[in-house]
């Protein structure tokens, strides 16, 4: 039996968001920080708020944007990493037994 490390990302408490024309507006009530996501980032955020898994998101977006899945995975990962750095997402390491 092997362990494949997956990372679980969640939103900190106090993050609220709204879909506005052409952008997603996010507010952290605790820090008063705001984010305005547009384009690809807004699309990714909206899909994630619908509960779309990472794998499905890669599949859907690579079909829509006509990009190879590997490239889409990289692009999404960059997006998620930026959001982590900015405080929109926080990380918990969990071990998933494969």
């Amino acid at each position, binding site marked *: 039996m092997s362990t494949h*490390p997956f990372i679980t990302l969640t939103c900190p408490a106090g993050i609220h968001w709204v879909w506005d024309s052409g952008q997603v507006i996010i507010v952290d009530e605790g820090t008063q920080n705001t984010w305005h996501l547009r384009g690809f980032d807004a699309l990714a955020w909206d899909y994630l708020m619908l509960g779309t898994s990472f794998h499905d998101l890669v599949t859907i977006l690579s079909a829509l944007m006509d990009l190879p899945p590997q490239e889409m995975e990289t692009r999404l990962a960059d997006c998620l990493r930026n959001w982590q750095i900015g405080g929109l997402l926080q990380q918990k390491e969990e071990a998933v037994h494969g």
Partner: protein
Amino acid sequence: MANLIISRLCDMACSYCFARDFMKEQSTNGSPHFITLADFEKRLDFLTRSDIREIRLLGGEPTLHPDFATLLRQAYQRGRRILVFTHGWLEESALAALEALPETAVMVMVNMNAQPRSKNESKYSPTRREQILKRLGSRLTLGYNIHTPVFDLEPLLDLISRTGIRHVIRLGLAQPALNGSNTYLHPRLYPVVGQRIAHFGQAASRAGIKLEFDCGFVPCMFSADDRQAMQHDHPDLGWHCDPIPDLDLDDQAFHCFPLARKVHTTFNTAEDITAIRDRLIEQVKPYRISGIYRECSSCDFKMNGECPGGCLSSTLHRFHPAQIRLQVPGSALQP
């Protein structure tokens, strides 16, 4: 400006009241129903130090305060103009206290669609209220809170001409109390309401009566033609969502009643109103980029500073808590 809450009690049961749930909570917490004379005096000192020219008294129903006449005298002695927000079915003592003040010293804003809790028809009859309006005369301004898309304002025109009160009607839009249960006018219905207001605005103008808007109105609820006509006939119309802090009995100041549970700060009467207001504004600043509609954040009226985007409570209703639990391969996230 600042609003002084002097009474948490009200004998109305208006379905659209955005203060009801909050006031009920405060009452069940064991907090007092009325401001003490000593605390009121401190509030007046605070207003004087903050150079606020108008003393605004509200509730609940402020005239239910057992010492309302005394509070009124205390306020009058400060040499400031007094504004009282009321449903208009005043007890004789409160009415007499208001009548005793010169017409230039006090203004009374009467909510003309207040909904009495009691079925006491003689106490809450239109006839009785009209008699009260006549007695207050030019001290009085009519107000009306629009909470359904169908409403009739025409009777107010006749009432004004019969009673000799100010030729002004102040319109309000019933706003949602955040985490509350009041009836309110949804922004989706604003265009229908805008048409009706524009139509009434013409009749009011012909009768020599000016309209004023309370907070939360937006220019896009009117067609361009209606907006132009309204602004020509009623130059005091505006698009506001700008806090006049409400100073509650227990030294809490809040942004406005709809946001009372969320946007508040403790204050002491040694402070200045500007500092209190700034603290409240700071709490809601991140949400100001948005508005009551999706389109607000890219709307010319908003970007030009003409419109703040409608009521902040309605805006906040649009926001959702971000709930996500995403499992990502660790290898994917390694830079």
